[in-house]
């Protein structure tokens, strides 16, 4: 394996992201790109300031930062697993990216490693977003002496966890290839990760409460996840770094050795539901939604969460249902061939209604058993209704995101920016309306008006895309 090829591939993948992701849809104009970048930087800065103020106000000078850092250390594995799951699910659809390298003189091993390096740089970005604010705030409050503690409690465990997860993932890929079901990895891998999250969550909670109890009773708490922090305390930073390097030196070659040598294309659709549905336009929109692997992934996450909630006796409204409503992000681009293969694509409003209507059908199909389960657990119906309202709203919003930031086939990354910006705006609206303290009926009216606005802009966006395709207006 030539490291130079791996680095070249890594650079090629990043070039792809910069050219094909940051520069499409609404981000096509430089002004929009600058605004989006400023909004993201402002959001991260705001997150930092918020974290600093909260930690200083509630923990500064209390001596409580020490156990809080230990709790953060115990939860690092869980958060890295979340970041890894997000990136891994996104990468499942990144066939186009891999195909870029098929006509280059590189071996399959080099391709896999270049891809792994690219993936780890993205995981690093997500991890910086998750832990960055906390790390910066603690160092600002406690001084530079705290840097080794933050490194040993947060960043060293994060690196080792990521490497362990990568090794686990490649082992799973090898196993799937051996069982000749590697094409189904789009479904199997997210399910395994979801089961991992379901197992890690109570474990993390349990450890956090044990750390709190130990602190209150003045006992010392030891666990494998706190290894780097313990080594720092008992021996010193140099030894902690040495152990990190030794662990990485063992894990990285293991990853290189176990990474699959051949590439198996992933199955993106599953032939479920009867074929008579294909005879009707609405039926075809239902087929595309139900058959896509993204829906299967969301469904499997909801299923695993529901089973987990039942056994763990988590009595909560059916929040997990929201996962199924993010399919709207792909609804417009996935159904693009349906509007392209016919010389008469149909009316825009009718096509929009088919897009959101099919998602409504999916929500009902998945929602009935999930809400039923919540009701059986004793959650009142009044607590479930706002969740359903949110789900309907999310279908409309995610469909708009999919129209404004259309994800390409085989390139799922285009969707990230749209989803991030939308989440920021939705959070601002929710918090803003909370400040106004309106009556529930007024809040409902405002949300309805906002949703109508979303519908209006979605139809306008679809019409504009059609006009761009017909070269009636310039993109």
């Amino acid at each position, binding site marked *: 394996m030539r490291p130079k090829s791996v680095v070249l591939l890594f650079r090629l993948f990043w070039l792809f992201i910069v050219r094909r992701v940051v520069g499409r849809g609404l981000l096509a104009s430089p002004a929009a790109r600058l605004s989006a970048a400023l909004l993201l930087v402002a959001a991260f800065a705001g997150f930092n300031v918020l974290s600093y*103020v909260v930690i200083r*106000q509630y923990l500064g000078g209390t001596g409580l930062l020490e156990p809080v850092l230990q709790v953060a250390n115990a939860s690092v594995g869980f958060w890295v697993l979340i970041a890894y799951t997000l990136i891994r699910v996104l990468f499942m659809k990144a066939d186009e990216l891999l195909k870029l390298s098929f006509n280059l003189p590189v071996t399959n091993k080099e391709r896999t490693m270049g891809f792994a390096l690219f993936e780890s740089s993205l995981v690093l970005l997500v991890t910086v977003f998750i832990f960055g604010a906390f790390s910066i705030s603690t160092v600002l409050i406690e001084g530079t002496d705290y840097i080794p503690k933050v490194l040993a409690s947060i960043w060293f465990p994060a690196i080792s966890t990521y490497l362990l997860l990568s090794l686990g993932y490649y082992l799973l890929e090898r196993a799937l290839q051996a069982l000749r079901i590697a094409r189904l990895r789009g479904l199997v891998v997210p399910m395994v990760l979801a089961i991992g999250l379901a197992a890690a969550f109570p474990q993390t909670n349990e450890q956090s409460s044990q750390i709190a109890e130990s602190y209150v009773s003045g006992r010392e708490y030891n666990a494998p996840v706190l290894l780097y922090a313990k080594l720092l305390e008992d021996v010193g930073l140099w030894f902690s770094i040495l152990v990190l390097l030794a662990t990485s030196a063992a894990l990285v070659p293991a990853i290189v050795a176990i990474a699959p040598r051949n590439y198996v294309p992933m199955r993106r659709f599953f032939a479920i539901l009867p074929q008579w549905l294909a005879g009707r336009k609405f039926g075809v929109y239902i087929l595309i939604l139900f058959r896509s692997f993204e829906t299967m992934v969301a469904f499997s996450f909801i299923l695993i969460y529901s089973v987990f909630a039942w056994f763990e006796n988590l009595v909560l409204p059916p929040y997990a249902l929201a996962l199924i409503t993010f399919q709207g992000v792909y609804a417009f681009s996935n159904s693009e061939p349906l509007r392209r293969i016919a010389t008469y694509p149909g009316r825009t409003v009718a096509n929009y209604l088919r897009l959101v209507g099919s998602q409504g059908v999916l929500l009902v199909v998945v929602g009935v058993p999930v809400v039923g389960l919540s009701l059986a657990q004793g959650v009142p119906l009044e607590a479930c209704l706002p969740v359903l309202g949110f789900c309907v709203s999310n279908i409309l919003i995610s469909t708009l995101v999919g129209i404004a930031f259309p994800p390409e086939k085989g390139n799922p990354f285009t969707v990230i920016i749209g989803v991030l910006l939308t989440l920021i705006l939705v959070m*601002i609206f929710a918090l*803003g309306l909370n*400040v106004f303290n309106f009556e529930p009926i007024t809040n409902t009216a405002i949300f309805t008006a906002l949703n109508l*606005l979303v519908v209006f802009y979605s139809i*306008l966006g679809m019409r504009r895309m059609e006009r761009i395709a017909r070269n009636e207006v310039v993109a």
Partner: protein
Amino acid sequence: MKWLLRFIAGLTVSFVVTMIVVVTSFITTMFSASEMGVRKFGLFGALFFEPHEQADGATALEIGVSNGAPIAVVFSISLVFYVAVASVLERLKLHKKRLLQADKG
């Protein structure tokens, strides 16, 4: 139709800007308030924030709008700014079109 679309876009953008300003002011006010029972104001007196200590020792937060005028001003300024920028952009586009046509002729 074109003007109706522009009006709706203006209202949407102004609403978003107003919400961002309100939320930012609210967060700033929230973290500058430290004493229990003292009401703090933000955004030129438009928003208030007051933490209370309850009988069981828990902290209750009272938040809300004390004066809607500054918020209305923020909304109006955003709307006027949007309309101004949109009009200038429209004129510049027309000018560019005329220049291109003259160049072609």
